[in-house]
Structure formats: structure tokens, C-alpha cells
């Protein structure tokens, strides 16, 4: 048995395959571009302001915290820029500047650097920043309220709020095609379903995110929403509606699959993704929040270390 050579490792020097965190960060940002550009096109200059300020301040906070803690300046890896972009994508276009600056501070400093920087964060930094702000200033995240001055030619009521308060009779104006093509109100980069799906497929094909997490997250949402829908179709929306509204798609491809806060083994990835999906629909349908993606993923971030205890047994045994 011991003579079987399963892995042969040659001595140094090794050849680096060229992949890097920087590549990963900027490719993820590239994948988010269709959705971001659509959001900027839809909401105009205010949306551009939010996204730009969010990215630049996320990098600035990382630079400052590196300086203060006397660590190597890590802004070159693009991770801070990515956090800023994703945070900006979740925000409404009318977010005030101080909300963006505070949010990026919480995301980068409290969500990431307190835990030792990239790779050490147990929670998704973007979601930590977003959740803290959403609890602190909830009115700024009520899309029905903050977007009252926008008239974009489609039903401007926030779809998830409509179904929560009015039941399925309140969402008859939304067709699947419209939702897929971003004809709905919401976060700057969270409404263009088709763009997010294209970005997600790109990330999966390039190996930047694990398909197991995204697919199980979507399946968790779909199946749970289906059960609710079958039990009471007048109150609970269809699975397709849940899959195309709120933060579902940005959550599946850009938030849940964040590497440091998600599992690495096959079964744990499925548990993590499906668990977040189930929790999302439970919060949406039974909880007090309109959307549940943010808290559902954070909750599954919490059990991620336990999930990863389920792992393949090591070959052989020590006597």
C-alpha cells in the first residue's frame, strides 16, 4: 500500500500558473458590469455617484486600515474595490453620500480587516456592511420610499414589498420577462436578472465561484417558494417570482459564493446554499423583513465552519 504513489511533488522551483486574487477580483467586477451598467443607465447619474463613491471609499478605507495597523498595503488585490462595487450594487440610487461612506467603512474595516484581512472574514463583508446599515437606517432601504421620485415606465412598487403586503394580487403587473429584463425597482445592480445570470455563468465557467453554492441556493429558494405557493397561491408568490426579484440573483452569484465565508467541500456547499435559499424564503414569507437574502446568507456564514466538518475521510489510518 505504502508504495502507491498518489501524488508526486517535485522540488522547487515551481511554476506559478498565473492566477491571482487580483485577477479574480477584477474578473468578478467584470462579470457584474452588465447589471451595474444597466442600473446606471436606468437610474442615471445618482446611481453612478453611488457606485463610484462606494468603490473608491472601500479602497480608501482598506488603505487607511493597512496604514493604521502597519500591515502591507493590500489594495492592489482588488478585493476592496470588489467589496465597494457589490455594496454599491445593493444600494438604492438615492442613497446619501454619508450612507455609502459609512457602509463601506463597516464592510471593509468591521467586516473584513478586524478578522485579519482577506481570507480571514467569517462573514461576507459586503453583507455585514449592508445588514448593519439596514438595521440602523431602515428607511433608506425602503425602495418604495426612496424611489418615489422615479417614474421609469414600469410598476415602480418594490415587488417583494407588494407581495408581502398585498398577496399575489399585488404583483399581477410583473411578468417573468419584465423581471428578467430589469423592469422592476430595487438596488442599482440587483434588478437586471439576465445580466446577473450572464455574469454568474461567466464566473462559474472561469472557476471563480463554485456552481454548487449558486445552484443549491437557487434550488433552495425555488423549492421552498413552491411549497408556500402550493399551500396558499393567493398569499405566496411563485418560485419564479422569488428567483427573479430582490437580491436573489446577486446573492446567488456574487454574495453567497464569497470564498472565505462559504464551505469548500461538496456536501457542505449544498447544505450551505440550500440552507440560505430556504431561510431567504422563510424570512420573505413569514419574517418581518421584505427581503431575506442578506440575513439568510449571513446566518449560513455563521454555520459555515460546522458545515465544513463534513469532509472526506483521509485515506489509510495511523496505527
Amino acid at each position, binding site marked *: 500500500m505504502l508504495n502507491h504513489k498518489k501524488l508526486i511533488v517535485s522540488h522547487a522551483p515551481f511554476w506559478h500558473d498565473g492566477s491571482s486574487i*487580483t485577477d479574480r477580483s477584477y474578473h468578478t467586477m467584470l462579470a457584474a458590469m452588465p447589471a451595474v451598467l444597466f442600473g446606471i443607465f436606468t437610474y*442615471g447619474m445618482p446611481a453612478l455617484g453611488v457606485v*463610484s*463613491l462606494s468603490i*473608491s471609499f472601500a479602497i480608501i478605507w482598506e488603505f487607511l486600515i493597512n496604514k493604521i495597523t502597519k500591515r502591507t*498595503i493590500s489594495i*492592489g488585490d482588488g478585493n476592496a474595490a470588489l467589496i465597494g462595487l457589490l455594496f454599491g450594487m445593493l444600494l438604492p440610487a438615492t442613497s446619501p453620500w454619508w450612507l455609502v461612506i459609512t457602509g463601506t467603512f463597516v464592510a471593509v474595516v468591521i467586516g473584513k480587516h478586524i478578522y485579519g484581512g482577506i481570507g480571514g472574514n467569517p462573514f461576507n463583508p459586503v453583507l455585514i456592511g449592508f445588514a448593519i446599515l439596514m438595521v440602523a437606517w431602515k428607511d433608506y432601504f425602503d425602495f*418604495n420610499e426612496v424611489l*418615489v421620485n422615479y417614474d421609469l415606465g414600469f410598476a415602480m412598487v418594490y415587488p417583494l414589498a407588494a407581495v408581502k403586503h398585498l398577496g399575489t394580487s399585488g404583483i399581477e403587473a410583473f411578468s417573468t420577462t419584465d423581471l428578467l429584463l430589469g423592469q422592476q425597482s430595487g438596488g442599482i445592480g440587483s434588478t437586471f436578472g439576465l445580466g446577473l445570470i450572464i455574469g454568474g455563468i461567466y464566473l462559474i465557467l472561469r472557476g471563480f465561484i463554485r456552481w454548487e453554492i449558486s445552484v443549491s441556493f437557487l434550488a433552495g429558494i425555488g423549492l421552498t417558494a413552491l411549497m408556500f405557493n402550493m399551500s396558499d397561491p393567493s398569499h405566496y408568490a411563485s418560485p419564479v417570482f422569488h428567483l427573479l426579484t430582490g437580491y436573489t440573483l446577486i446573492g446567488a452569484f456574487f454574495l453567497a459564493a464569497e470564498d472565505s465565508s462559504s464551505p469548500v467541500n461538496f456536501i457542505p456547499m449544498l447544505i450551505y446554499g440550500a440552507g440560505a435559499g430556504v431561510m431567504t424564503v422563510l424570512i420573505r414569507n413569514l419574517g418581518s423583513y421584505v427581503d431575506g437574502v442578506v440575513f439568510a446568507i449571513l446566518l449560513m456564514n455563521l454555520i459555515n465552519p460546522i458545515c465544513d466538518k463534513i469532509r472526506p475521510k483521509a485515506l489509510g489510518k495511523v496505527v
Partner: protein
Amino acid sequence: MTPKREMQIAYILIVVLLFVGVISYAAFPAKTPDEPIRLMYKTVAGKVLFDHKTHSADSGYGLACAECHHHPEEPEEGQTANVSCGDCHQTLEKDQKWPESCLDCHEAEDLEESEMTKKSDAFHSQCESCHQEVEAGPEEERCNWCHVM
């Protein structure tokens, strides 16, 4: 990409996007239209989203402005014709008979005999009477038809 190049890109992103962000916020603030599109009323019983455009536009219910904005009935020259509901129908302090905004146009002694309908009563009566007239009214104890609870 060399580490030096990576840092250069990060610095460029900071400078360019900070510039774009500041300019966007400073030069292109979110506009408030002259005529409201939607209004969000915050009440103690939950928010109420009112679609102003659907009520006023010809493609919607096509209501005349004066059907809701009833004061002043005959505006004088230079006077604002459509006073916002909340300008007059306010939640008044104890011992306050009318809101301060009345004094913008009226003398205090002219208001001695008048009494202002309080905000919640004015809104409930205005919305409900019209909605019930067209049989789209909220049913008894169905506050959540309008109030987000």
C-alpha cells in the same frame, strides 16, 4: 500583473472614481419633480404609499387637482394654487388651533372661528370617500389595504 502595476490600478481607481462620485453627487443631485409622482406618508399605523401620478394623470384616474387640493378655492394672483395637504392638515401641538403655515396668508384674528381638521382625519376622509364612491374602498378593519403594517 506586477505588484507595482496592481497598486497603480488601485490608486487610479481611487482618484478617478472619487472624482466621478463627488461630481455626480454635487452636480447631479436626485431631482424632486414639481408635481409629485408618488408620496410616502409616514404614520404611526405604518407607511402609506400614495401614487399621485396615477390619480392625477389622464392615463390614470384623471382627477382634477381641485378634487383634493381644495384650498384656496380661488387663488389670488401669485398665490400657490395647489397647497400640499400636509401644509394645512398637520398634527397640531396641544393648545394649538391651526398650523403656523396658515399665518403665511391669513391674519390671526381671521382664523379665530376656524378649526383645522387634523391630518389623519383629513386623509382618511378624503381617500375613503372617493374610493368608496368608485367601489374601490377599503373594507372595515382592512387598514393594510393602504397602510403597510
